[in-house]
């Protein structure tokens, strides 16, 4: 594998990992209370 190919692979593996993290973050269940009282949706008032 040439250096050029190796760098290309690394750069793309980073992108694949990033996409994986995004998908995981989207579906991850968040514990209640991430928002402080003052920062809850002001539209709910």
């Amino acid at each position, binding site marked *: 594998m040439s250096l050029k190919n190796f760098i290309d692979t690394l750069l793309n593996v980073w992108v694949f990992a990033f996409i994986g993290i*995004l998908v995981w973050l989207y579906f991850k269940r*968040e514990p209640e209370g*991430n928002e402080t009282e003052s*920062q809850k949706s002001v*539209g709910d008032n």
Partner: protein
Amino acid sequence: MFKNPLLLIALTLTGLIAIWGIIDTAGLAQFSSTITGVLFTSRAWFIMLSVSLLLILCIWLAISPYGKIKLGKNDDEPEFSTVSWLTMLFAAGMGVGLLFWGTAEPLSHFNVIRNYTDTFRAAEHALFITNFHWGLHAWAIYAVTGLVMAYFSFRKGYPILVSSPMKAVFGQRTWTRSVGWLSDLLAIYAIAIGIGGSIAMGVFQIQSGVESLLGLHNSGLWLAGVIFAVLCLSYILPLTVDLSKGMATLSNTAMAIAGGLLIFVLLTGPTYYIMSAITGSIGDYFARVVPHGFKTYTFFDEKVTNWFQSWTLTFMVWWLAWAPFVGVFIARISKGRTIREYIIGVILVPTFFSIFWFGVFSSVGFYGVLKLDAPILEVLKTNINDTTFFVLRHLPLSTLTIIATVLAAFLFVVTSVVSASFVLSMFASGGDLNPPTRTKLIWGAILGALGLVMILSNSIDAVKSIIGLAALPFIFIVLLVAVCLLKALKSEVV
């Protein structure tokens, strides 16, 4: 100021880039070109996929029930009338870029594409590609960034920062604090380099206009230096006093001049030809725009892939560089609007305006090349900065229109630097809406130094690659905050 590590690191980082560029301009340009070349080759698919997904996200949000959600409290009303709001959106998107590229960009594409197809198809496709670069995809990048900022600021009560969505959705954790901090830093870095590029482009444009007016040829760096000095002097005062209303007036004046220029060229140029081209380009654009967003020219020769990298990919990362800056501006003027109104206003209206703008300026250029055999393509090769003025010189009242173009370019650059200094100071001070004057002045100086670096490079291609280097990491941040928005919307009752 010295108790704020983000500000110190951001100033040091951008300051070092400026010093490097001033000491060794060619070295920085070469370094940027090599790195962006590698990144563009490896990640072209990711950039195009990302910007296409951002556009699809915008369309989906506009038509989904989430479109009814207000950017603010449920009883908040928009601060500005719809007409004022749309005018201000124009002002955000209408920068010195449109003045610079109006004729030059479509003709540059034409010059490449005509080697692969018939002349008339090449002209049509060149105009389509230009509209693609300045249209829905560009505005989708701005729209998502601004939407995230407006939603988390006006509806959730967080400061207008790139890091706010992460802290709002995932809580105050080590990773949200560190990734958020890095995101704010990358936003500052991208804005600073992007504005530096606009200063350089503005100076190149003004320089060509002054050369045209005074009958100078190849005035070189001395005239660019004089123009740069006048620009710097012009934005120092607005940075020291609160001139928000005055700046709005200057920005509106620049818009009015550009609008007047557009109508003048439409009426004094070949009007039937221009209107026919615009009508054709509207149909062509909307028929092909979404599939074209996924096009990566994989199976084409090296000349085409180089062209794709130096235009399409560069423009997409250019919009990314400007996204935090324009996003803040759009967010601030959109409080009280629904997501649906916001998206329709932000992505559709400026796109139509761009189609009209490029339709007018490109058609005049194509008319000259295809019907009159005018040597515009030669001008494009020898001095791309002069393309707009070459066209204006062949229309009536050319002295007046060239002065108007120079003045509009000057005003666009001054208002951009003043606004960017404010946004940079605000980001670096944790969202403070009244950042200290000293911080704004320091940012003004850094932006000036970065502009000087790009002027010294004396090449629009070098400017493009330096901006690419700064903006590429920001694509990850835009996608991350978009996920934060989607996650937050899930908890909304619609």
